């Protein structure tokens, strides 16, 4: 992966992520998050994971974020723009510092560790290998996730439905 592409994608990603957190209008946040996710999909593509990139586009950008945007539009919030941040500013500063501490704790020594690139980085796998691994090594996780999704589908409907159904047919 060429550094130019990586750095430009990273900077865009960081900027979009910051905008997600800092934008006062939730809808703008959501749109920026969608952009961040599309950007991340490109990073995945550059990391030779085209399938994951496509799934990222389809699942995150195409489905999850659309859902967020839809819900936000349905709510039609007006008054929230004034007070986007909760709690008093002093505590928020502490919160910022602790998030910064987390970032610093990991990144402080990160570059002093040895490089692992010698392990043959950047091998491209075809999708068949991906599928084979998914259905052999991770079959249990796969099945469990299927069950989880079913549960979630039922649970989400049970949570948000109005009594008596939405329409009678």
């Amino acid at each position, binding site marked *: 992966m060429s550094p130019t592409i990586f750095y430009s994608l990273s900077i865009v990603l960081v900027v979009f992520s910051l905008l997600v957190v800092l934008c006062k209008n939730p*809808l703008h946040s959501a*749109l920026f998050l*969608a952009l961040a996710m*599309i950007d991340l*999909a490109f990073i995945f593509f550059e990391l030779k994971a*085209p*399938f994951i*990139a*496509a*799934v*990222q*586009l*389809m699942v995150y*950008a*195409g*489905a999850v974020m*659309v*859902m967020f*945007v*839809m819900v936000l*539009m*349905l709510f039609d919030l007006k008054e929230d723009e004034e007070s986007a941040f909760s709690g008093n500013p002093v505590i928020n500063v502490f919160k910022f510092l602790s998030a910064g501490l987390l970032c610093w704790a990991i990144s402080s020594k990160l570059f002093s560790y040895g490089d692992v690139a010698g392990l043959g980085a950047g091998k491209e796998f*075809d*999708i*068949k290998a991906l599928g084979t691994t998914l259905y052999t090594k991770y079959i249990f996780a796969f099945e469990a996730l299927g069950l989880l999704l079913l549960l979630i589908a039922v649970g989400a409907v049970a949570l948000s439905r109005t009594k008596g159904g939405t*329409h009678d*047919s």
Partner: protein
Amino acid sequence: MGADIFEISINIIKILVIFLLMVQIVPLLVWVERRGSAFIQNRFGPNRVGPLGLTQLLADAVKFLFKEEFVPSKGKKFLFYAAPVIALVPGALAFASIPLSAPILVDAFEMFGKSWGPYRFAFQGFEMGVGIVFVLGISSLGAYALLMAGWASNNKYSMYGALRACAQMISYELALGLALVGILLIYGTFDFAEMVAYQEGPLSFFFMGKEVIVPFLPNWGIFYQPLGAVLLFCAMFAETNRTPFDLPEAEAELVAGYHTEYGGLKMLMFYIGEYGHMLVASALMATFYFGGYNLPFISTEAVNAFFAGFGFSATKASIVTAFALHVVLFTKILLFLWVFIWVRWTLPRFRYDQLMDLGWKTMLPWALANTIITAALVLLMRTEWL
């Protein structure tokens, strides 16, 4: 991507050409749609400007260009302008990843005193191993344009139209994806070019480890997956928001849906986006189920050999082949586009709850059943039982 200047420039030209191709087919389609609807409804349609009313399109374009710029007050100006542009993107990107013809093979040659190595140019914007997954991913982004347009207009009808469109797209994406799984199981690949290659020659498949050949049918996906094809085609109608699923712009209920507040060039861009979607849908249908750019029974090599028989060099034969097969694919695509138009002027519109019921309670279960049955059949086909 290419390594040297020649390759890069060809690629840029390619992408540009393909995008322009998509944009330029729109006027043609508008003409077909208007004349076609007139034909279906026993009218004349536009027939004054130019032969058969063909230059009506130019007049329309001029009209669009000179319409008044208009932004609703209290609307979100940036999003309002961004939406139509974004509407163009998914269609264009998706169309660019579909192979429009056989790849062109260029032998090594001398130019500007340098030797240029042998090249292989795929007749598509960019080659992707994950082809169809990418197309699905990209086309699911189309919802943003509608949502942004609806929300930025600050208009209840627009908003409803956008929400409807969005819910509809998300719902039908499931049926669409599942309808595709069956054919993907049979082809065993995500790559469009490999799919097209699979469909060469007469219908032949393995059944319980023995090869069966049906000489009078081409080896097209439609014969393996008739149900999948029908489901995919229906889902495509919903994805493109075309009648009978054009609820988001139902005139009687929502004025014009999410583009109520749009006019002029911006409106035109939404149109281009919609036709782009149709184009992608038709191209996918052709590629998946109707042999792609290949002629029935005739393989790409055979066409190449036919042209080479005229005394062309290998490079030239390859180029001629590519363009010939391109015409083949476009014939197929145009046929499907005609079906889109035909349906629009034939079928009435669904009610919204009927639409959702159809998507979730009819098409999704059928697509699931199709997937499971196909998986079983593929096992039966590939396993040698006796």
